[in-house]
């Protein structure tokens, strides 16, 4: 008996669980499956620290959050999507509060907000500095209420089932037993997160291997804006562990080897003793990471055995504030860097963190491939454009998880039952997996190819890029794809074969890497996180557009551009520091929701 559901979700993190709940609440009669390669509480949402943005302060307005997001994205954001996102974000965060999320509070009991990078007003809700952890566990525990949701924990999806021009399910390996199974569906939603593991140094967990992006790409759905990779300015040097932006929001300074707050040299304002929104350390992430690279070139970074760093100075915050607002930062530094931020400087450097690009979706999470939806970091709507602002991605998971859930539910309820011949594809996939991954006697170790791919990506798609090294990288990736046919898999067990999973993840990553370099080569301008030394200026004439990469029949990449949706904010210059424009709005509709009204 082939399992069959109305909606199948691939991935059980913030977006996946929110979508599942949305479907269960919209239409309790629908059957829902959440298929995740890890238990949902292990999803990488769990490691997000800083916060989630939503307009609630009385002096804040929807228009200002929209403007901050659009300017933060260097005008590559689809403004209709940003408008919907900013409108719905506070409601989603409130919904989460009703579900038990332990948001940090003001003394009078109202939800507290903190400043965050690139935002002109304080609107970042936070749960100490473990916001993602609390959000994920709240979502997971709340999702347990719904009997209509069936979970497939530790099932690894290897392929989408496509028939008759639409997606009708997935094929997955039950890791515990090794069994290959087809799970059919009226609609599939990909919520598999980003692909940071394509780089060598990343905040991302081992599981962030771009699975959903690759599945969509191979099934014929285009990927959008793949050249935009966010480097978070403050990661620990050896491990790449994230030190949240909240440390800077609470007042931390970034200083170079001379103890100088170097960001003042990069059009980010003048240094003040207290954090000033949209200036200095509260500038957008792409500009801060680029400043680091320029300091490196000027020889003003501190050389450590693990690489060059700058220092994050939290000493002036005091022990009480650090323990109250950023205790996890203290714990991470103590454990992994053997230092105490109350007394010591923290060595930090830019580290790959988030993928602005992803599966092309519309404002409701629908991809151009009927039956296929996507939400969260795996998708690109796009609300983040060329650079994401911190604390926008957690509400993105909620808003678009819910939208994609409702859209998929509506779509699935209109579909006829799945044609049984679709299930026959399972046999093909089983044979492919057996031949490609079990019966081979190769010579290349998985780790060799993976590390070479990562080195290539770091050289070709780093913070600053140029045509020659990108072209070289594309060639290297092609050779790695060929060498992939020769990998050795020593583990022949069926039971929980993690080596086979690593090999499949590597093949996903190689496909994704190719799309990233293809898009990076084609975009001959510098915008947001994509900086070209050979094209240092932004070019709205040619490139105020999203790059769509699709797979051709012979396996290569086809690129086309689609224009960005502009509504009320014509492209302007991106300004930070004291000169940053102040957006005024007095529309009644912009008044934020109440942030506390009794139990």
């Amino acid at each position, binding site marked *: 008996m082939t399992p069959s559901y109305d909606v199948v979700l691939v991935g059980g993190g913030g977006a996946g669980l929110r979508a599942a709940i949305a479907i269960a609440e919209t239409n309790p009669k629908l059957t829902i499956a959440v298929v995740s390669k890890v238990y949902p509480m292990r999803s990488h949402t769990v490691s997000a620290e800083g916060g989630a943005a939503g307009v609630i302060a009385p002096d804040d307005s929807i228009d200002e959050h929209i403007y901050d997001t659009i300017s933060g994205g260097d005008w590559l954001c689809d403004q209709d999507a940003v408008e919907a996102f900013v409108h719905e974000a506070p409601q989603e965060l409130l919904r989460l509060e009703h579900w038990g999320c332990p948001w940090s509070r003001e003394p009078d009991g109202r939800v507290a907000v903190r400043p965050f990078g690139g935002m002109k007003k304080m609107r970042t809700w936070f749960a100490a500095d473990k916001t993602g952890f609390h959000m994920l566990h709240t979502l997971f*525990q709340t999702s347990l209420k719904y009997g209509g949701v069936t979970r497939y924990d530790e099932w690894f999806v290897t392929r989408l089932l496509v028939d008759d021009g639409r997606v009708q399910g997935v094929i997955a390996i039950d890791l515990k037993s090794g069994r290959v199974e087809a799970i059919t569906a009226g609609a599939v939603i990909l919520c598999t997160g980003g692909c940071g593991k394509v780089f060598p140094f990343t905040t991302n967990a*081992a599981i962030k291997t771009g699975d959903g992006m690759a599945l969509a790409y191979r099934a014929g759905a285009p990927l959008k804006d793949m050249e935009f990779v966010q480097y978070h300015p403050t990661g620990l040097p050896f491990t790449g562990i994230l030190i949240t932006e909240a440390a800077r929001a609470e007042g931390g300074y970034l200083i170079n080897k001379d103890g100088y707050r170097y960001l003042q040299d990069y059009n980010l304002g003048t240094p003040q003793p207290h954090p000033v929104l949209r200036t200095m350390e509260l500038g957008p992430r792409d500009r801060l990471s680029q400043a680091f690279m320029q300091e490196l070139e000027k020889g003003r970074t501190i050389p450590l055995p693990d690489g060059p760093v700058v220092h994050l100075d939290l000493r002036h915050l005091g022990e009480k504030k650090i323990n109250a607002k950023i205790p996890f930062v203290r714990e991470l530094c103590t454990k992994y860097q053997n230092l105490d931020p109350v007394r010591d400087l923290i060595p930090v450097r830019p580290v790959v963190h988030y993928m602005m690009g992803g599966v092309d979706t519309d404002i409701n999470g629908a991809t151009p491939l009927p039956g296929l939806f996507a939400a969260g970091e795996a998708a690109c709507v796009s609300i983040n454009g060329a650079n994401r602002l911190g604390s926008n991605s957690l509400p993105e998971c909620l808003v678009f998880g819910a939208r994609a859930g409702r859209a998929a539910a509506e779509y699935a309820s209109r579909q006829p039952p799945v044609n049984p011949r679709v299930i026959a594809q399972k046999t093909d996939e089983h044979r492919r997996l057996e031949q490609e991954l079990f019966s081979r006697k190769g010579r290349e170790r998985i780790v060799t190819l993976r590390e070479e791919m990562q080195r290539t990506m770091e050289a070709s798609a780093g913070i600053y890029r140029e045509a020659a090294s990108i072209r070289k990288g594309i060639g290297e990736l092609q050779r790695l794809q060929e060498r992939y046919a020769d990998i050795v898999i020593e*583990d022949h067990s069926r039971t929980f074969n993690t080596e086979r999973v690593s090999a499949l993840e590597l093949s996903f990553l190689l496909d994704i890497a190719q799309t990233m370099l293809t898009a990076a080569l084609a975009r001959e301008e510098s915008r947001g996180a994509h900086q070209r030394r050979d094209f240092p200026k932004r070019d709205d004439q040619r490139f105020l557009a999203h790059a769509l990469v699709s797979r051709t029949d012979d396996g290569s990449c086809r690129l086309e551009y689609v224009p960005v949706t502009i509504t009320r904010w014509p492209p302007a210059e991106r300004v930070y520091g004291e000169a940053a424009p102040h957006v005024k709005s007095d529309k009644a509709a912009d008044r934020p929701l109440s942030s506390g009204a009794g139990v």
Partner: protein
Amino acid sequence: MSNRIKLQIARYRPEQESEATFDEYEVPYTKESAVLDGLNYVKDRLDGTLAYRWSCRMGICGSCGMDVNGEPKLTCATFLADYAPGPVRVEPLRNFPVIRDLIVDIDDFMRKLVRVKPWIVREVEKPVADGAYLQTPEQLDEYKQFSMCINCMLCYSACPIYGLDPNFIGPAAIALAQRYNLDNRDEGSAERMRVLSEHDGIWGCTFVGECTTVCPKHVDPAGAIQRYKLTAAVESMKSFFAPRGA
């Protein structure tokens, strides 16, 4: 010029053997290397057949719990240098059935978690348009510690009661129930009490206290359980002397 240390890793290959065996590997390490880094070195370069779970490598996802020299630990937050000169024995978490090598089955906990209703229970749901519930920082502190549980299962591994009687509901499940009981927004204490007051609920606990000792997030499940015993006892007295409406 790096140091090297021996890892004795428990192996279990269900298709080939019916008992666990040990394989020994030598790995390089620096003062920053975690036990997990050692396992990754083995899998990547020495023996691709080694199977184990891991993800975030920063002690927040809860995947990588294993027994290191007999103590349940998160292998991403346990450092090889602390065990020098070694050898370091790595085994799957005790008290769970072993599926393969270092991978144990935790579905028993997943089923128990659902039973304690770990969600906000309200008689009448508040509409989103009414805004957030008020919750002062003091009210948040009441349950905050118990909300830090990462479901890593180290507490179940350390609990001898769970080892002897797998029907015991266990430390993390009770701590998570308390997390909701003590949340001022929740109205589900009575419903949870029915589940927790069962024979294999809180009364299975004899306050060994090892769960609290091994918890990497300082949740203090033992404290949660003992405090709840008092609550449950008082409730049961109240219902004895003044049933319904007490």
